[in-house]
């Protein structure tokens, strides 16, 4: 293998790693939105997940405890959104923003004493047999457990939505809650599940950042990935397959940006850091121009009025 191929393969492998946290968060938000709730708090839930994953691993020494803690705390924070929007009929846009402000504050506040401390976290291991496939093996099967777990999510997501009664119920709550209610379902209860699952997955995305992508805690380590995830849900037309594509697209840009910086490219770092955000605008523009917004669940962002 010559130098250029090796470099290309290493960038593609890094693409998968950078894309994984975004993939978790995107699928999570997509799940929530399919139940009809817009939760703009992804960035907040993600960073709380990143911190609690770090803390639980730091305390127990077991990164899986960290992953569980991240999911539960991300999900727990998302329940606040549930309280505001499902119980008290608050505005979903503003509540999600508040959740992001709160989550960023919480993680920063509780995490201040731990900034810069390293932890064990996950290590990469080659999957037997699969890792020996030329090219694909190097790109996809020499990572850590959280990456492999993320491979299972999009097919599971699709199966759940398309092939199970529970998935149908979830979609009904997002498309037409009144009809779901008439069919004997409880759309409010379904939306609680949608919100919690989304928060759980956003938490896992955060956990990836502090346990696998890096092995330490720093303030603000999500740096907008949660917002990119919100944009990717629209880009993906609310479908898991396109979410994978979108997440790896961003992973690729972030991997390339790091590589260029490491090679000492003669570009100011502030311009390089702009790349993912500028790409978000472009990608969203492309999908909006194709009428992407029309694929949204019909009752997305609309609260269910309490019965008298």
């Amino acid at each position, binding site marked *: 293998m010559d130098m250029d191929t090796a470099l290309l393969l290493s960038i593609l492998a890094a693409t998968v790693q950078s894309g994984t946290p975004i993939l978790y968060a995107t699928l999570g938000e997509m799940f929530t939105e399919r139940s009809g709730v817009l939760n*703009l708090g992804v960035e*907040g839930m993600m960073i709380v997940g990143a911190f609690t994953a770090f803390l639980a691993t730091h305390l127990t020494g077991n990164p899986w405890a960290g992953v569980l803690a991240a999911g539960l705390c991300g999900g727990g924070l998302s329940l*606040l959104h549930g*309280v*505001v929007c499902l*119980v*008290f*009929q*608050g*505005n979903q*846009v*503003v*509540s999600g*923003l*508040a*959740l*992001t*402000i*709160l*989550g*960023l*504050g*919480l*993680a*920063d*506040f*509780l995490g*201040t004493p731990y900034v810069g401390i390293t932890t064990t976290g996950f290590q990469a291991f080659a999957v037997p047999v699969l890792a020996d496939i030329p090219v694909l093996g190097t790109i996809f099967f020499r990572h850590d457990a959280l990456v492999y777990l993320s491979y299972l999510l999009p097919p599971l997501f699709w199966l759940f939505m398309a092939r199970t009664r529970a998935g149908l119920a979830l979609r009904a709550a997002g498309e037409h809650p009144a009809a779901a209610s008439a069919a004997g379902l409880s759309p409010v209860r379904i939306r609680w599940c949608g919100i919690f699952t989304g928060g759980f997955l956003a938490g896992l995305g955060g956990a990836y950042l502090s346990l696998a992508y890096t092995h330490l805690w720093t*303030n603000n380590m999500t740096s*907008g990935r949660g*917002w990119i995830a*919100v*944009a990717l849900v*629209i880009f993906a037309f609310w479908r898991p397959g396109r979410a994978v594509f979108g997440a790896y697209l961003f992973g690729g840009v972030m991997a390339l940006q790091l590589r260029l910086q490491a090679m000492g490219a003669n570009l*100011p770092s*502030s*311009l390089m*850091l*702009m790349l993912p*955000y*500028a790409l*978000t*605008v472009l990608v*969203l*523009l492309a999908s*909006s*121009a194709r*009428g992407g*917004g029309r694929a949204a669940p019909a009752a997305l962002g609309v609260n269910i009025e*309490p*019965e*008298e």
Partner: protein
Amino acid sequence: MFLPRVVKRQEPLQWGSFFIFAAALVVSLGVSCALLAVHGKPPLKALAVLWSGGFGGPFALEDTLLKSIPIFLCSLGVAVSFRMQVWNIGAEGQFALGAVGATWAVLAFPGLPMWAMMPVMFLCAAVAGGLWAAVPAVLRLRFGMNEIISTLMFNYIGILFLQFLVYGAWKDPASFGFPMTPIFPKAAIIGPISPATLGRVHWGLAVCAGVAVLLAVFLKRTRLGFELLAGGENPRAARYARMPYNLLVLLVMSLCGALAGFAGCIETSATVNRLQPSIMVGYGYTAIVVAWLSRLRVSSIACFAFLLAGLRVGVEHLQLDLQVPAAFGGILEGMILLSVLAGQFFDRYRFTLKGRS
């Protein structure tokens, strides 16, 4: 049988916004103080510091008033666009571009006398901030692009653009490598109104008053202003009534950008006297909290801007006196906004324990 039941109110709760805000403040302070206790800080002492730092005494009030100037200006624009159901959360980036625009004016025309410098500075700030907001507006109107995400991404890009300039082309050669422009000439510095009686309170306050009056007249006395307030209630009806809906959206977004640009200009010129990245402290996000607390009513914005500015100043004192991390402010603001959102439910509904009649 004794499960509480939700009943719709015939009329909105009397003094609702006051009670709801008071309750939300109590809840938020309670939760935040519990967190302080977790962190091993004395919660009651922290409350005392928070109060005396932000509101106890002339020096504290002066600080609070100074901080409420940029929050007020950003919040006016946010409130007007939220009223139109345009979810412009880009005040932070528009603030950054305003600061950049004002600084460009100063660097391009350093020799201008003050009477010319001030209008040029404010004009450049308003144009830069306004254009930064107009782009997402056009993208929304032309391509149906979600403005929440575009304005947020423009925040990141705008702040990085500011950094790009002060780390690069605009860096003061004499700053020993610190990312900042040279200090502004005297003609470009917004000075105090009356140092003897009002201390450090600068002419930015007068700008706020002027803007507030102009905006009030515009909203109450002009046809376009009326359409703007009415159009937000029901965009479809507004279109049906042949209101220029697209023009209104473009107008409110640009207005918000221009006002946030003013705020950026004032912070740069009056507070730090030069452009440096430290002016970006999240006023644009606090402005969203203020806008929602004031229920998008322009008249209440001044009060809530002052209150939240006071909390920010109080948190700075917590940092100094008790070594509480600055992020405590985010927790407070997030909690207040969440609990007010939940509390506004009681404006429209009440609980009853009585069975169905």
